[in-house]
């Protein structure tokens, strides 16, 4: 018997059986057991009951130290009192109204004041809303049709972001997409040369964080060269900062890496879980943004704007990116030590606030999947396929708890894998 309780998921399972009758796949998308890579399903919760700070509890009453943070939105801690109070106050005044709530303007002003590259801000709901809008603005501004992006990158679920062969995608959806390799400036130059005068934009995540693979930070000259080539060729540089936004720097991830984007997309951490996304842009593209007809039923809802203001103010005051980096470094060095003490070589990549991990010599990924499952069963929510997220509510005690669970989980794996090194 180990030190930690092994979770059971009876109620999650029962609820899932109800779900599959009325919802395609039961739970679709990245929060579901399939896309969320719950391997094996018996180790994972499917439905949450509540959340607070760094934790969520599932419907069976199991608590999890949550390192996925709803895949990014939870940055201050679930149910942050300041953000929730601001949202509640605005909800009393009005939310979805015929003309926008007055809170729209101070939210845009605050974002422009916070994000270094921003001269203006535009709001929508999801990350994909604003990555698509950014591409449309670039096409309008350049009168070109081709989109350059990184191989293996993710910019949402709109047809242009997907691949030919995926369900519901036709060739014409993606026939104007071009791909290049991250950190390979010669490859970038080659694609630009081969499509001279045809590329509207280069859309990129701040660093390369594909799923299933080691993440990669930009080389020293990558963005310097990219910016120069974009300028020389009239290509709009779009930063998809949906996932990284505010976790690397409250001034924007382009600022963090020493470059100025022309358009920058935010969502996830923007309002600590309240439903809003934003596109920020430079002055030269402001007019083109108005040329594109783009709107949605709930895009002007005032409650998330108020939450966003409170969230940004708090992130600025506490210089949240520094706190997240420190917590991340502490956790990850501890995890590597725990792994090593059990004879495993844990490989960490990416930024400390949103690290990716895998085991060395694990060609199939099965050993790492087994360890992640053992952690989840004991109340630490990791995934095996995706980068993780740190939030500000994570305490030293939570980190120690995580390391203790990780140790017991490695020992459980070792029992079945005595020869793995």
């Amino acid at each position: 018997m180990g030190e930690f309780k092994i979770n059971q998921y009876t109620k999650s399972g029962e609820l899932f059986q109800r779900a599959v009758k009325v919802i395609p796949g039961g739970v679709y998308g990245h929060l579901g057991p399939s896309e969320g890579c719950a391997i094996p399903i018996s180790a994972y919760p499917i439905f949450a009951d509540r959340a607070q700070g760094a934790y969520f509890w599932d419907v069976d009453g199991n608590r999890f130290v949550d390192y996925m943070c709803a895949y990014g939105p939870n940055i201050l801690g679930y149910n942050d009192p300041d953000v929730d109070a601001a949202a509640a106050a605005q909800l009393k005044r009005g939310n979805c109204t015929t003309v926008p709530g007055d809170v729209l303007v101070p939210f845009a002003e605050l974002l422009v004041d916070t994000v270094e590259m921003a001269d203006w801000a535009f709001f929508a709901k999801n990350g994909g809303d604003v990555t698509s809008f950014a591409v449309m603005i670039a096409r309008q501004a350049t009168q070109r049709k081709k989109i350059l992006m990184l191989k293996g990158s993710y910019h949402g679920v709109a047809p242009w972001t997907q691949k030919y062969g995926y369900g519901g995608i036709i060739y014409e959806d993606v026939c104007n997409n071009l791909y290049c390799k991250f950190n390979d400036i010669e490859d970038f130059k080659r694609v630009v040369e081969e499509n001279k005068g045809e590329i509207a934009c280069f859309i990129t995540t701040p660093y390369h964080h594909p799923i299933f693979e080691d993440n990669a930070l930009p080389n020293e000259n990558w963005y310097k060269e990219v910016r120069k080539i974009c300028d020389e060729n009239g290509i709009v540089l779009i930063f998809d900062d949906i996932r990284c936004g505010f976790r690397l720097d409250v001034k924007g991830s382009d600022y963090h890496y020493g470059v100025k984007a022309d358009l920058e997309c935010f969502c996830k951490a923007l309002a600590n879980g309240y439903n809003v996304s934003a596109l920020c842009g430079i002055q030269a593209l402001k007019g083109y943004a108005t040329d594109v007809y783009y709107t949605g039923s709930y895009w002007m809802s005032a409650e998330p704007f108020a939450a966003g203001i409170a969230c940004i103010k708090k992130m600025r005051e506490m210089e949240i990116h520094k706190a997240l980096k420190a917590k991340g470094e502490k956790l990850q060095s501890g995890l590597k030590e725990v792994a090593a003490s059990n004879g495993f070589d844990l490989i960490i990549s990416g930024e400390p606030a949103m690290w990716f991990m895998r085991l060395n010599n694990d060609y199939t990924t099965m050993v790492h999947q087994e360890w992640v499952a053992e952690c989840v069963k004991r109340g630490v929510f990791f995934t095996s396929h995706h980068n993780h997220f740190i939030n500000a509510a994570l305490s030293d005690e939570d980190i120690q708890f995580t390391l203790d669970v990780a140790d017991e989980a490695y020992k459980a794996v070792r029992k079945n894998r005595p020869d793995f090194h």
Partner: protein
Amino acid sequence: MDNVTKAKINLFAVLRNFQELCSMDEVAHNLIKDVKLTVRFVVPEVGSATLAFANGQCKFFTGKKFAGLTLWFVSPEHFNSLIDGEKTIPIFINVFKVGFLLNTFTKLAERLSYYLKPTEELLADEKYFRINTYLTAYTAFFALCEIGNSEFKGRCNASRIPEGEILLTVNDGPSMVIAVDKNHRLSAKIGTTDNPRACMTFGSLQTANDVLSGKSDIFSNLGSGNFAIKGCLPMLDNMSKILSQVGFYLK
């Protein structure tokens, strides 16, 4: 849907089932127990395959092989019409073997069709259900390889499958291996492997039958614990995208 891919599926995935059919089904076995003949099918743009009947068994081979009876088809569409059950006469020389074609082969084809076109009533029979599930699984996964190697959309998906072997298992049922080479060419075999890079396991024959016949989906079964995956998930994710194309060809 392109006719060349469909013909490849018919030749290398559907016709292949004669081998398993004759070993699993008593009626089929009795039809061939005294037959000693090798029949080769030659389809332009597709290739050739051979069924060898001897000693009460049927063996399937791909590629060139000496045959007592060779059936030539003028086009992929010509061959597809034969498999679709339309009245189709292939070109052949050995008129002494025409009896096999008109009699035994036709009856075998009808028997295969009987198992691959189930009704709810037939599926209620345990023996039928088992044979139907085996043959459906074999057809689906051999067909998947043909789509991944031949069709444009299929090749796009196959190009994203990392190199290695995928083990497909049905608990208390068949198992197969899909091998992906460095050029993303797919090949299937019935059996197992000691070194799978990814595994896909159907919890029961019922789950396999339900998923492969489109009565239920992989996502629901995964969340319900009736279906499991592990290992290199990009292999399974991209293979599943090809698997979802199979149904359009086998309708």
